[in-house]
């Protein structure tokens, strides 16, 4: 029946690998093999730098890699399954595991700064606590975005705009009116939520990809305005000297009346860092708490219903306008909180910090973690942001690897790392996790 006889394993592998090698050569011959550089000193003349060795390495690597993979895995009928998927349980984590993991993580997060202090001392632990603060900021942003993308199914590519609104709200209110952090924190949240409604209102009719692109456009508009409204926002120079938060009125300063003085401790700059750590930790937990509570309320169920099927939602009498707007506003509010925290931590903000890349990273954390999964966001944030900072020395390559990892994880596990959902409402008492393949997302 088979018209063409199948090539033997070796021949087939060789053919395939040769094809791969040729493609690699075509990709690399110009972009890697030749580098255009600007000659310094001789005007702006361009000259070429040859790097054929790198091309050869790339071609040989691809050839050998493909050949070996073909010989042992891809083209064999009795190929052993690759053990990679074995690291994660099939169909995601069960309920029991997740809740144990959850409490273990919270406990770890509570003791983390003191454990680090104990091991590494005040000086050595500072950079790690700083990193933990950064990770927690992204966890909070991820949880905030999870309301919009994971629960309500509205794909938002301009989330960083609300983060920027929060940061600039605090910085500008402190700059012009001298408001303190604790007064500005709720104000920044409210303002960001307000912007969420303003931007959310016109895009209600859009679905899926179109919504993504319009939110991206809004995010860029806000950034361009921040960049060019020089008199008000300082333009590309940004705003500096943003006041630090106080601990119930106690400033983290040396000397009389400061935090250290009040508690009879020796002054150390690490106090403020640890305080910031617990502050963002509490804010993140608050985000999670609100989200989990809302999921059990009518509005949360309406979000999830909206994600599954908008037309059915409307047919059942759910007001899709208010449902979408509340999701937008709440997501934006948490981004606003996180933004004002960012401003107070850095003490300096500029439009540079609020580029599209930032939105992409937050979205990647949500999607790679598993849409709608709170614990998945935490894991993805630790892996991505932690890994990102860990490879700080490879400044040039890490963004390249970051982009590739986004592709690889998505191809490998399209539903994210934690791909099971606990339904918020179930018929039987013992609700089982449902596979994410049964859940529709991104149609809103």
């Amino acid at each position, binding site marked *: 029946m088979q018209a063409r006889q199948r090539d033997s394993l070796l021949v087939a592998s060789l053919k395939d690998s040769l094809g791969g090698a040729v493609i690699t050569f075509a990709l690399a011959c110009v972009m890697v093999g030749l580098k255009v550089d600007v000659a310094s000193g001789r005007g702006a003349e361009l000259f070429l730098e040859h790097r054929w060795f790198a091309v050869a390495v790339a071609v040989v690597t691809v050839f050998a890699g493909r050949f070996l993979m073909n010989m042992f895995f891809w083209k064999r009928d009795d190929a052993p399954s690759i053990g990679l998927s074995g690291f994660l349980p099939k169909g995601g984590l069960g309920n029991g595991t997740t809740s144990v993991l959850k409490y273990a993580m919270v406990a770890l997060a509570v003791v983390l700064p003191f454990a680090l202090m104990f091991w590494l001392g005040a000086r050595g632990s500072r950079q790690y606590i700083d990193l933990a603060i950064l990770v927690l900021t992204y966890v909070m942003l991820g949880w905030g975005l999870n309301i919009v993308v994971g629960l309500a199914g509205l794909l938002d590519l301009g989330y960083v705009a609300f983060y920027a609104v929060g940061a600039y709200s605090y910085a500008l209110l402190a700059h012009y009116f001298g408001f303190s952090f604790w007064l500005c924190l709720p104000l920044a949240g409210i303002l960001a939520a307000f912007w969420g409604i303003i931007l959310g209102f016109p895009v209600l009719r859009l679905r899926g990809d179109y919504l993504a692109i*319009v939110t991206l456009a809004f995010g860029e508009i806000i950034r361009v305005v921040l960049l060019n409204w020089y008199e008000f926002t300082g333009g590309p120079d940004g705003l500096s000297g943003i006041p630090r938060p106080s601990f119930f009125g106690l400033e983290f300063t040396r000397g009389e009346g400061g935090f250290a003085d009040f508690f009879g401790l020796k002054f150390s700059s690490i106090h403020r860092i640890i305080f910031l750590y617990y502050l963002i930790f509490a804010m993140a937990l608050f985000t999670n708490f609100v989200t989990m509570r809302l999921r059990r309320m009518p509005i949360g169920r309406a979000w999830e219903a909206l994600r599954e099927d908008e037309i059915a939602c409307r047919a059942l009498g759910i007001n899709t306008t208010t449902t979408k707007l509340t999701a937008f506003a709440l997501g934006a509010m948490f981004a606003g909180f996180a933004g004002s925290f960012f401003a107070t931590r850095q003490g300096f903000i500029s439009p540079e910090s609020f580029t599209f890349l930032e939105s992409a990273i937050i979205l990647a954390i949500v999607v790679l973690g598993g849409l709608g999964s709170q614990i998945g966001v935490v894991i993805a944030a630790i892996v991505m942001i932690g890994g990102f900072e860990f490879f700080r020395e490879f400044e040039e390559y890490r963004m390249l690897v970051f982009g590739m990892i986004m592709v690889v994880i998505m191809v490998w596990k399209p539903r994210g790392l934690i791909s099971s959902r606990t339904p918020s409402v179930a018929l039987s008492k013992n609700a089982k996790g449902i596979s994410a393949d049964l859940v529709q997302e991104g149609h809103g």
Partner: protein
Amino acid sequence: MDYFLQQLINGVTLGSIYGLIAIGYTMVYGIIGMINFAHGDIFMVGSFIALVIIVALGITAATPVLLLILALALVLVVAMALTAVWGWTVERIAYRPLRGSFRLAPLITAIGASIALQNFVQVSQGAKNKPLQPLISGGFQLTDGGADGSGFVVNLSYVQILIVVTTVILMLGFTYLINNTSLGRSQRACEQDRKMAALLGVNVDRTISLTFVMGASLAAVAGLMFLLYYGVVDFYIGFLAGVKAFTAAVLGGIGSLPGAMLGGLLIGLIETFWSGYFSVEYKDVAAFSILAIVLIFMPEGLLGQPEVEKV
């Protein structure tokens, strides 16, 4: 009036470049319904490939005219071919495994591919922007500035003529390809119903790959034109150009080839007139606002067909 004419010429030139990129978006969206977010970066890669070949061949403004034309044609062909390989590879690695997956998945890989491409070029070609001495200089002076006494001279440069003429030729060619060849027929079949097309013997995977290849090679043309027109490229040009070209595709009606070209022209004109008469700083805001306004009030675009909502 003279100032208006000059802006019109500049706008049409810019619009041609956007239109060429927009075709890539519109074809891919038409056939698999996803926003190929990495397309802007494919355009950037095409621009770099063209730059490298130009420098490698040693083309300068001093090259004799006939030789210059031949060399540029060679650059164009090689850049189109190599960029097409890039487009094919991105589709093969990042999109094909996710076909049939849920809708967000290919968008995320597209963003990942976009970040990876940008940073790959930054690593391999350096972060500095690369200025290229103008290869084709001179042009026609349409007015001598004496007409209304303003002394404003309207220029129509050879590069602008080259860009517009090339775009028109390519557009005609592609319209023919889509309407009259078997490849175009299978593309339109896949667009309407992928499963049915497969049942009738159309190789769907191959057709989709070829769509990406065509889109990428047109992006390479746009890349070369961009390089000749502005004379400077860096690894970040893809993002803005990509978003604007996507706006053009949406404005013209996504999935429609003439729509993409029309949208490109409109976006180019709007951007040029906005910078010419209002403010240069906010020209991107103008383009983005148009995108939002069009999507909200006229989601099917100028020449597109309205999407029917099915249960």
